[in-house]
């Protein structure tokens, strides 16, 4: 059992934010999947997401019993597991929208790339723990980069540009926190920018189109640009107070595609308005801000690195997903954490929140 001492050290603010987001998520998924119109399967999505939320909360609570430190012991093993899993997707995976991302296990469709994000964070934290403050030269950085590059390339191969970009965010967030030489970081970014045209070459046509459409959705208003245009219309037309739950015409009349998954934030914007959307963003802000605080107060470097990795991942997700629905980020297929429908993503993010709680619960006692 958890001691009372530990329970008292739980981050209740973070818990409140996470629970708040999950509750909003269930309501909005309900609205987006027409729970108010009679149909045999109208509760399917909400039920499923709700069950997984509860199961995962139990899982997280169970995990709190173990000191997060044991993760460090399995860091390398998890890394290998990650690679195997990603290869398995490529071999066994089912295609969806031209990308192999799914593995069917019984009634559950798993999206391994979601789990691979959190595994990536744990393995990288394990590796960087010993290199804190020792990332000053290109030679120092090379092994770390190679370590990340392997799963990164496997994800790119799927192709899952979204997850690959999340890996980048995690990588940069964590080496930044691990004290990488800033000039080195600048050089990497500079080189990266310079290599953009080469990179462009390796993108699939539909990915190129997404980026072109991001620049100007009207190049293909009924094709690739359609999502962005309809999403912006949904959010904008929500105005200050929103059209009310179930009242969003863009969402309810299906003008807004993928309204319960990647574009769920547009439903929030449309039905809850600026006030509701801002409220949701504040919940996210609390969660993310707590993430950075937890990194700050972690007992050890490993904990700090884990917290930074998780926060980087979540921040990137929120930025890219909300940015995408609001038309300031390209369409990359990154879900909104704890909000978008999808059990793999939900599990990953709840586990991530659990790890944050774990770290905070076992923080250093000396405050200054």
């Amino acid at each position, binding site marked *: 059992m958890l001691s009372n001492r530990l329970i008292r050290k739980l981050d209740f603010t973070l818990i409140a934010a996470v629970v708040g987001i999950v509750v909003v998520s269930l309501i909005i998924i309900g609205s987006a999947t027409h729970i108010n119109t009679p149909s045999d399967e109208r509760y399917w999505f909400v039920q499923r997401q709700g069950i997984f939320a509860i199961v995962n909360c139990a899982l997280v609570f169970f995990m709190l019993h173990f000191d997060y430190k044991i993760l460090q012991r399995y860091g390398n093993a998890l890394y290998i597991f990650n690679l195997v899993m990603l290869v398995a997707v490529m071999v066994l995976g089912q295609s969806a929208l031209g990308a192999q991302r799914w593995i069917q296990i019984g009634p559950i469709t798993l999206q391994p790339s979601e789990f691979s994000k959190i595994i990536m964070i744990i393995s990288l934290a394990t590796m960087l723990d010993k290199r804190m403050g020792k990332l000053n030269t290109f030679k120092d950085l090379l092994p770390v980069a190679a370590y990340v590059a392997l799963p990164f390339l496997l994800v790119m191969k799927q192709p899952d540009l979204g997850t690959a970009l999340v890996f980048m965010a995690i990588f940069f967030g964590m080496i930044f926190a691990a004290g990488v030489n800033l000039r080195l970081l600048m050089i990497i970014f500079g080189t990266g920018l310079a290599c953009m045209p080469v990179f462009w070459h390796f993108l699939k046509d539909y990915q190129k189109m997404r980026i072109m459409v991001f620049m100007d959705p009207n190049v293909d208003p009924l094709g690739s640009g359609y999502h962005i245009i309809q999403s912006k219309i949904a959010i904008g037309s929500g105005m200050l107070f929103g059209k009310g739950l179930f009242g969003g015409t863009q969402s309810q009349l299906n003008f807004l595609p993928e309204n319960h998954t990647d574009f769920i934030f547009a439903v929030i914007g449309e039905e809850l308005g600026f006030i509701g959307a*801002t409220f949701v963003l504040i919940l996210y802000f609390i969660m993310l801000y707590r993430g950075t605080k937890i990194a700050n107060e972690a007992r050890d470097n490993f904990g700090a690195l884990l917290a930074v990795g998780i926060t980087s991942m979540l921040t990137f997700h929120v930025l890219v997903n909300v940015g995408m629905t609001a038309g300031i980020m390209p369409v990359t297929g990154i879900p909104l954490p704890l909000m978008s429908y999808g059990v793999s993503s939900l599990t990953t993010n709840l586990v991530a929140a659990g790890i944050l709680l774990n770290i905070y619960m076992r923080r250093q006692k000396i405050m200054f």
Partner: protein
Amino acid sequence: MVTTNKFRVRLETLSIIVIVVMLTLISRLGYLQVLEGDYYSRLADGNRIRLIPAMAPRGLFYDRNGALLVSNRPGFTVSLLSLVGPVSDDVVARLANLLKMSKEDIYNKISQHTGFDPIHIKSDVGPEIITVLEEKKDDYPGVVVEIQPIRNYINMELGAHIFGYVSEINDTELEARKGEGYKASDIIGKFGLEKVYDKELRGIDGGGQVEVDVTGKPVQILGKKEPVPGCNLTLTIDENIQKAAEKAIDEQLAYLQAKTEYKKAKAAAAVVMNPKTGEILAMVSRPAFNPNLFGGGISTKDWDLINNNPYHPLDNKVISGEYPPGSTFKVVTGSAALEENKVTPEEKILDTGKHWIIPKVNADGEALGWIDFRVALAKSDNVYFYEMGNRLGIDLMEKYARMFGLGAVTGINLPYETDGLVANRRYKEKVYKEDWYLSETFDAAIGQGFQLVTPLQIADVYSQIANGGTRYRPYLVSQITAPDGTPIQKFSPEKMGDLGISKRTMDVIRDSLRNVALEGGTAGEVFKNFPVAIAGKTGTAENPHGSDHGWFVGYGPYENPEYVVVVVVEQGGYGATSAVPIGKKILEAAFHIEPPTKEDPGLK
């Protein structure tokens, strides 16, 4: 342990990044939802709301006795409802094939259309096409069938030049009338009363506001506005007289073409007017056209047939046909001569068959000897009226012609009326840069030479004679009523001017015109035994382009005239043989006279 300052700074930086990210996102939302919210709301409404317009039925036309002349009937219109996706090429190809249109035509209609309401592709299609569309719905996604009122000219060509026709508004009309609520693909009156009273007739379109989902399927009706039908017109036309006039002309033209030398007698005009009010009771122009052809977009074939007809079916020859008045003009010359005391009714002038100053002759070379005014007018003697012209001079003749209203439009409520020409010095000087010759005065005196009139102007002239000298504005509409029957506007006779010629003169003229229809007059044979006393005048106008035009003007009853009838038959030869038989039949209809049986219309 993360204790060194450097790492603290790094973590603080990460916090700041989180704050910046959130502020960015919230600002973006503020921009989209608060600043641009109205704009996106309109876009969202545009996505989901479709306007299905319901065209207002145009106002109806009734004759003076309440007989329905022009109405509407329901017709099927094939339209495309603009969905989220563009209409596929396959569907357009299938539709083009079904409607027998070219694909380009359909694409043109699509590209010219703006807004979310249905794009009209073809109106008034047959039920067989609707059956195909209903049965093979899946082959025609986005194609909808609407029911729209189609203008129905019940009696086809009857009164076509009075009613006019309707058709889809064109770009120039749209540009000119945009401010008045006209919009693309509206049906608009293009000719005749349809054009003049379009605003009153068109009514107010209604429509339904329908919420549709992403596939264009209606989800719910948001609002419905019933169309308000247009106002109805009660015409001054008498359907019976109109029908009789049309029939008489058609029969007479057929007769002239088939049985006489006047093969080119294909065009004619007739008008019946109430001399006491200016009301038009009938108005016929030949050749005519079927106004029903225009409503649903006239086919190229039909249009070519109308447009290439050398006798111009679309001209209303009653108001825009300009003819030399011939002998019908002699009442003007005669009035002037009597009023100016250039002659007395009793003075006799010797007709030797030609005038003594300039050897101009009578039409058929006859010589009537010593004749007075009444005989001269009744028998339409040219030499006598050359002499009247000689005594008056061209300027006085011009003055009297203008007093009767010639050389100016009558002001009837129809478009495209022309004003004719009164022979005068200034015109000749301007056009030919030559002085006036006496022989031209002679020509003018008998309604030849420069003189040009429309049949309606002649009707106006004889109405003044018949009613004692008041010129009324001819009109076709007596009342505009709302769809529920309440009168909106009533039209009453409108005085345009007083002739100012003495009763003494007018009596002589009328007396002489009465003689025309009596034994010995030019129309005497035809009106022998006619139960109503008729006065009138025949005319045979020389036509430099072919055979003579035949004229007849008649009015009756002589003592208290109710009808003035004017008939002109282009290239029909003598007025007495071409126009008079028509005029007689019209007068029979007007006076409800059963014609004696077995009468050959061409024989006198």
